[in-house]
């Protein structure tokens, strides 16, 4: 029977080309970052004032110094502060994600839940999480609870909406195909509906993670005794501009790292993104 069919061309020659494209993308991206550093350095040399704009070397040496030396004197090292911020983010993010997945899943499968929760989400979604900081401080004090609750309240609606939209977007034909191939409804739920929704859910997680970093830094600037946001605020108060840049660079690197992890996860579950 195979003689009636055109033999498919081999698919293997695509692989090295993809690898070359990847290397090219990384090189171009690195060049872009390098360009920013060069512009920064030139501007700093022209301005010639550390408080307005420190040079790249000043920022780097300040960063290295504060990695081991606590700041302020009775505070923590940069490492510990970064760890504190990361801990808050992760707790709030994981709790918010879990709740969002459950809520989104419930909305997608139970009509009453959807109709009940949808208006609440629509009304609260435009509110920036930062608007809740004073309220959360009144409720929970300036301890960890308020900050984790802040992250949680920012992550929850994003993950809920992403999960709901992703489950709604699963093509009915895919579910039908699975059922008519003999899979049980439960097998179809897990291996087709949830599996098919996964990439879009992870994209939602990436957006939520970005938002979490924005709000945690804001919260640490208002009420905290540790964390990268706290360091930036303190450095600002004492006109230690190089340290402000260190803090900003730390956030950038941490944010990039976590987004990178989620992107790896996305690549692992979505073959079309490879």
């Amino acid at each position, binding site marked *: *029977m*195979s003689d*009636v*069919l055109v033999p498919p061309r081999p698919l293997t020659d695509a692989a090295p080309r993809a690898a070359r494209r990847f290397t090219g993308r990384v090189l171009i991206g690195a060049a872009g970052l390098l360009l920013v550093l060069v512009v920064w350095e030139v501007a700093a040399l022209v301005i010639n004032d550390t408080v307005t704009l420190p040079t790249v070397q000043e920022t780097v040496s300040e960063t290295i110094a504060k990695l081991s030396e606590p700041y302020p004197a009775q505070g923590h090292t940069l490492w510990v502060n970064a760890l504190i911020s990361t801990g808050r983010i992760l707790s709030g993010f994981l709790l918010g994600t879990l709740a969002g997945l459950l809520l989104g899943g419930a909305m997608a499968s139970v009509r009453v839940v959807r109709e009940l929760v949808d208006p609440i989400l629509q009304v609260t979604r435009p509110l920036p999480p930062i608007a809740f900081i004073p309220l959360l401080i009144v409720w929970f004090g300036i301890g960890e609870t308020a900050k984790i609750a802040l992250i949680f309240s920012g992550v929850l609606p994003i993950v809920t909406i992403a999960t709901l939209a992703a489950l709604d977007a699963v093509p009915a*034909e895919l579910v039908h*195909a*699975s*059922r008519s191939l*003999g*899979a049980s409804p439960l097998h179809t739920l897990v291996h087709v509906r949830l599996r098919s929704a996964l990439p879009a859910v992870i994209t939602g997680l990436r957006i939520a993670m970005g938002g979490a970093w924005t709000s945690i830094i804001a919260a640490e600037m208002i009420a905290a005794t540790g964390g990268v946001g706290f360091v930036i605020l303190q450095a600002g108060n004492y006109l230690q501009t190089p340290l402000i840049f260190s803090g900003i660079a730390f956030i950038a690197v941490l944010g990039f790292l976590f987004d990178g992890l989620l992107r790896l996860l996305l690549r692992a579950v979505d073959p079309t993104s490879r």
Partner: protein
Amino acid sequence: MSTLTAAPLVDTEASAVRVRDVSKSFRTRRRSHRAALEGVDLDIAPGEFLCLLGPSGCGKSTLLNILAGFDFPDSGEVLVGGHRVTGPGPDRGVLFQTPRLFPWLTTWQNVLYGPRARGLLTPALRDEAAGLLETVGLSDARDAYPHELSGGMRHRAAFARVLINHPGVLLMDEPFGALDAITRANLQRFLLSLWQERRTTIVFVTHDVEEATLLGDRVAVLSGSPGRTKSILDVGLPRPRTYDDTETLEFVTAKRRIREVLEAAP
């Protein structure tokens, strides 16, 4: 079982597919409901290749979805292999207009999805899957993902995915409608040789008269909405058929006869 059919449920030889007085209407926003099918009757013998022909919107897909168990009739009776259809099942393989492979699975994993989901995966079945991929010409694309395949390759993969289940009935809803002429002709040839070999009962929806004439033993013509069985015609062309038959006089005559019925006023 309703009193509508006199034949006992076990009488599978009489007809592989039996549709009796099936009606179906949909609720729409503007009108309270719109009739899609009205009193459709159809009997398909085991091993028969039946083409469902009719104008757009006459309910062909609706009927096929009912046979597949994705949707249910408002009234009437649908039996496949002597059993009342209560939902989708591996006894009825379905091929959609677009192939609908699972995009996160490779060709190989897609083909094995059915046996794996049912816990029936054996080494013998793996061998059979490898043979099927060979048959549909996808051995080299075994580890490729659906988005890396061409449209025709996806259709062939979807074929293999269904055939591994050995369905007694194949339900096909305009499966080649979206393909270019060459790929389409290739797949029609493949389907003909497959049917010649396996003698699976096939219900094939199309709105192409030539396709219906080439493939079908009989052609059921549905009339426009709401769909009813207008006429059932014997194609009457000898088997095995090949693609070259489309140029013979008998073929052209058969085609014209079917077109006349299709275009006649209801």
